């Protein structure tokens, strides 16, 4: 008699923020293998994009996903700018980076917080959410919204910062440093967190390369493919920052990458806010978007995001396609979950910071 049991997990459950269906083969408490089925929240957005004009698609792409909602319209606009040779004014490029990095801090804090929630460490979870809330407040104050901040347009940024707002952001970042440092120290040293995350969900460097994984999932296995440095865009080429790598290859390493990246984001934001040149924020007037093909890549909080666009000279895209970081990170779960304890499934799944809205579009 076989001792292996097949357990369906999902598609709907509180531990899965969005619907994904896992079929888990277990022997006792140990996972032998998994299979995954997506499709529960497919919205056909790439089809919708063909029905909207090039400007309306800025709004549409911002709604692919809320956590990386800035990177979608940014990458989309960049693809059109690459196609038409549109030069974004330098101030616009700095403003784009500022929006991007604020979103990254909030996203990373959210993922690490949820991971701690899954561990059942609720006081630290609340602490994580409180820190993240400061970025939510910042977004609401600067852009008027907590998630979709509408910072991008074709040819530049849709917002500007005056001296008062720059001072406010710098002050908020300064206030964030100490508690995030304490949080990072707690994450590194707390025995309960260490016990649950160290050696859990192993994903060796060789597998990270083989699966083509991106973002903190790759960097937690020592694989450096940060698009901000590999193929600089916006103002990143002018800024000094490091790529955060961890070599533990486990849940802990992936969380530490995210937490340490918060400090790099703060460093980037401070440089932008202190050195941002004056001038226009957007290219005006815009040239006609010609027929052709273009590609753009950005580093979303979860990793590399690529947009490809084909136009035919009209105001409507002939084909718009995007590949989100989670799309290539899902399969890594086959490696991470093999041999894992059932109790760690949710923790390991959370460690890839999965996004169904992005995956299914």
């Amino acid at each position, binding site marked *: 008699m076989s001792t292996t*049991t097949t*357990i*369906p*997990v*999902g*598609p*709907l*459950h*509180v*531990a*899965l923020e969005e619907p994904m*269906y896992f079929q888990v083969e*277990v*022997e*006792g*408490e140990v996972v032998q293998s998994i299979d995954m*089925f*997506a*499709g*529960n929240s*497919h919205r056909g957005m790439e089809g919708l994009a063909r029905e909207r004009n090039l400007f309306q698609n800025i709004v549409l792409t911002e709604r692919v996903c809320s956590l990386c909602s800035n990177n979608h319209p940014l990458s989309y606009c960049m693809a059109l*700018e*690459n196609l038409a*040779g549109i*030069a*974004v004014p330098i101030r616009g490029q700095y403003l784009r980076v500022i929006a991007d990095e604020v979103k990254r801090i909030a996203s990373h804090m959210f993922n690490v917080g949820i991971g701690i929630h899954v561990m059942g460490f609720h006081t630290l979870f609340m602490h994580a959410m409180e820190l993240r809330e400061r970025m939510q407040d910042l977004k609401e104050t600067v852009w008027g919204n907590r998630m979709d901040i509408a910072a991008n347009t074709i040819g530049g940024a849709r917002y500007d910062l005056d001296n008062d707002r720059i001072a406010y952001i710098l002050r908020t970042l300064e206030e964030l440093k100490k508690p995030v440092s304490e949080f990072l120290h707690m994450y590194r040293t707390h025995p309960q967190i260490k016990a649950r995350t160290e050696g859990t969900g192993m994903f060796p460097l060789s597998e990270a*390369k*083989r*699966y*083509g994984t991106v973002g903190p999932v790759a960097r937690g296995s020592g694989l450096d*493919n940060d698009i901000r440095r*590999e*193929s*600089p*865009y916006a103002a990143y*080429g002018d800024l000094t920052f490091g790529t955060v790598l961890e070599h533990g290859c486990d849940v802990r390493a992936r969380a530490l990458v995210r937490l340490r990246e918060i400090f790099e984001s703060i460093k980037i934001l401070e440089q932008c806010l202190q050195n941002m040149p004056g001038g226009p924020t957007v290219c005006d007037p815009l040239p006609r978007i010609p027929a052709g*093909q273009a*590609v*753009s*890549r950005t580093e979303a909080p979860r990793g*590399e995001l*690529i947009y*490809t666009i*084909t136009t*035919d000279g009209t105001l409507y895209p*002939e*084909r718009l*396609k995007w*590949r989100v970081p989670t*799309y*290539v990170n*899902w*399969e890594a779960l086959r490696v991470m979950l093999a041999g894992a*304890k*059932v*109790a760690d*499934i*949710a923790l390991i799944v959370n460690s890839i910071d999965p996004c169904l809205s992005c995956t*299914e579009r």
Partner: protein
Amino acid sequence: MNNDIRTTLESMIADLSEPTGIRWTKDLHGNDYGWCTLARADDLPRIARDLQTAEGRLITITGHAPNTHSDKGFFEVSYNFVLRGVILNLTVIPEGTKPAVPSITRWHKAADWAERELAESYEITVTGHPDMRPLFLNAENRDDARARMVPLSVMTNSAVTSTLWERIMGEKTEGGEQQ
């Protein structure tokens, strides 16, 4: 350095059975993009293998039914690879009334889902794919998936003995539900 990478990519294309050229473009930040349409879809595995050997990475695969299609076929399939920061956009035109492209999942695991989605969305056959099931839940299997749902909380809260699953599945059987 980008010139070396460009040369590497050009020599890969030159080694194909029917070599074609690469058209290079640059964005305003100096990033390089190579554009190439393969003369034969059969050449795709070779360049996929060569790119993997050179530590290149597949980013995505895009199916497209262009308004103005080629004489060869109605579809285009674009493959976006990256080699140390340089993007190579390869276009393949699946020919004939039963369009097909060869799978490259063997060399690039990132092609797995993309090829399944390509087949599901465009009915383009991907030959040699190791697991050609539809990528997304569809009308046929969606209800079945939900009927078999076991809440994760039941699993994680009580995952302490090897008999746990026998109990859970036993309860479901007693309740007359499908296992």
